[in-house]
């Protein structure tokens, strides 16, 4: 039993952190917000050079053949920086589904491009009226239709761009024209893998985003003075941040576990991913509420960066399952087992 990351995994995370600290500061994120649907995924291509996009792609297809555990800390860094591309869809869900269920020709066509960072993959939960980040701007979309999973090129997509609260998500409402030529698999395990890998990966993003919220709020408590002393000396404020920090550590622990279980194909992976995603969504929602409250008025301005993280948290809390539904699914399984 060893519940820690190895040196390589820690170093990979640290390299991505250094890169994003330098290349994706809040000021650049703001320009990406301004570009809206016109943004062309430049950050992702730069990140691919570090091995992020190909981490879960096997070596024969140009990746490094890792497991999700290798990417958990990296996803945390992508979350901390609110990376604007659909990272979990492209670097986690697509490689796992295509290598697990795609025909060799399909793998040969797509996996090398994904690993190189040249392809952005979107994921749609249904073929009609689906709300999809990068729905109009992805290079290809994995579409679920019942138990079927399809891979759909832009020519077969009708996308209506939407004004999202976080414009760097490039939301669109999409319809997909599916037929035999787009079908990847009818194996229900593929749909389950989309849910599970998507939830585990998004949990990791959210934990990283929570770290950002806790750090910012901590910094504010230490520097902002009222009544002649730093806010950090007021116990009621300290305790509120402590409750958030504890919720984040709980979510982090569940996320490591989910990443591991998805990575080794453990039968408990689906439950572990749901628990991680529910806990991470809750932690993010509590961290966001506490951050906004403890920042006071300044946090409510457009000028302050806090809102960038709050609005992204709101989006990720909703991707790959909201907490209440995931908990109801877990509870129903436990009730049925008795």
């Amino acid at each position, binding site marked *: 039993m060893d519940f820690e990351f190895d040196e390589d995994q820690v170093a990979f995370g640290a390299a991505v952190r250094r890169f994003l600290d330098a290349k994706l500061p809040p000021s650049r994120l703001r320009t990406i917000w301004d570009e809206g649907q016109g943004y062309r995924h430049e950050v992702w291509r730069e990140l691919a050079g570090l091995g992020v996009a190909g981490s879960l792609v096997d070596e024969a297809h140009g990746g490094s053949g890792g497991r999700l555990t290798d990417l958990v800390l990296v996803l945390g860094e992508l979350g901390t920086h609110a990376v604007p591309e659909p990272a979990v869809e492209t670097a986690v869900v697509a490689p796992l589904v295509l290598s697990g269920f795609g025909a060799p020709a399909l793998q040969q066509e797509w996996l090398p491009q994904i690993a190189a960072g040249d392809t952005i993959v979107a994921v749609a939960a249904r073929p009609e009226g689906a709300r999809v980040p990068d729905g109009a701007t992805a290079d290809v979309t994995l579409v679920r239709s019942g138990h079927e999973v399809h891979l759909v090129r832009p020519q077969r997509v009708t996308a209506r761009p939407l004004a999202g609260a976080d414009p760097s998500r490039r939301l669109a409402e999409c319809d997909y024209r599916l037929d035999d030529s787009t079908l990847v698999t009818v194996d229900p395990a593929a749909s389950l893998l989309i849910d599970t890998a998507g939830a585990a990966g998004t949990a990791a993003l959210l934990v990283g985003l929570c770290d950002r919220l806790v750090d910012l709020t*901590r910094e504010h408590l230490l520097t902002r003075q009222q009544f002649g002393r730093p806010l950090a000396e007021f116990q009621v404020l*300290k*305790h509120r941040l402590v*409750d958030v920090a504890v919720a984040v550590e709980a979510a982090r622990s569940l996320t490591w576990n989910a990443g591991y279980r998805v990575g080794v194909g453990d039968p408990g992976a689906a439950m572990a991913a749901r628990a991680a995603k529910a*806990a991470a969504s809750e932690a993010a929602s509590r961290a966001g509420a506490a951050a906004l409250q403890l920042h006071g008025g300044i946090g409510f301005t457009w000028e302050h960066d806090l809102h960038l993280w709050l609005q992204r948290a709101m989006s990720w809390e909703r991707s790959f399952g909201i907490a209440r539904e995931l908990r109801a699914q877990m*509870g*129903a399984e436990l*009730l049925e087992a*008795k």
Partner: protein
Amino acid sequence: MDLTLTPDQASFQDEVRTWLRAHVPTERLASPGTPEGLEQHRSWERTMFEAGLAAVHWPREHGGRGLGPIETSIFYDEYLAAGAPDRLNRLALGLAGPTLIECGDEAQRERWLSNMLSCDEIWCQGFSEPGAGSDLASLRTRGVVDGDRLRVDGQKIWTSHSQFADWIFALVRTDPEAPKHRGITFVMIDRHSPGVDVRPIRQMNHSSSFAEVYFDDVEVPLENVVGELNDGWRVAMVALTNERSSNLNTAAHFERLLGEVIDLVPPERRRDPRIAAEIGRFHEEIEAYRYLTLRTLTELSKGRRPGIQSSMGKLWWSEMQTRIHELGLEMLGDDAELLDPADAPGGFVHRYWLGRAAHIYAGSNEIQRNIIAERWLGLPKGR
């Protein structure tokens, strides 16, 4: 990262499971508060002792198995799964013993350790006082050096197991002039000495598991002092960092509690999504506790001393446990108002209130939040 057992861990798990299956008493033991129950528990502990399983986390030279933190948790997971009785000498095995091993002298270890393991001597803890709860260092029980002994006067409170304990490890103030953390001494007091008076506290949950202990000019040999005179605060901190070993509040324990609650859900509510979501949430919280704990165990097993996770863990399990109890009470419906009969399903009413005590004992949850704020988040002290 590898969440499978090593071959050694797997064979230890197998050994423990087999042994427990053969030896765990099939009938529930009576409460150790009764003479009959005390004898039953002693006899169970003696069986464990003879098998070398009394304190698996203690070093071999002191009668333990010398197991690391992960192996110890494997042991307790099996112990709980086997439905084995509550440990009788928890405070000796978890606090007094490890403290003696770390801070005691050879004669003291010789005198006490083996009797802790065999349960020939049972221990209780004399830290809290009526005027010293969260502010433990303000304790006032006096110890005055008189030749080769200390004369102890004062009062301790919330002393569990004291009705049947033989020894008390206590903090007493030996230098009233020194700053409050400096004038304290850690000392072993024979509970049967003249002048020691134990008075059970009747609790709001209709039972009595704690007591007050009064000391009236109790003579304690100076050789019972652990560490140096006036160095007791440091020794006490060693004891408290050991507090989580032999901890039975494991994820497996709460998993079993949640299982009991699931059994209480009436048929007509088993498809209610609100109930399902609550149960799913508790499952998630228990798993979070399991993996929070595993992070700590991993750090300990690599020789690092995690500073803060015990505070996080205590906060997490105590508050989670109350929420699980509350769902149990909701499922009991009108019966939640009734006192539990001795054979009640679950005994939730009793356990609910006892669980509330867990928010207060072993460092109140507010104190834990202060510790986390200061040591984890690096925020300043303050009110």
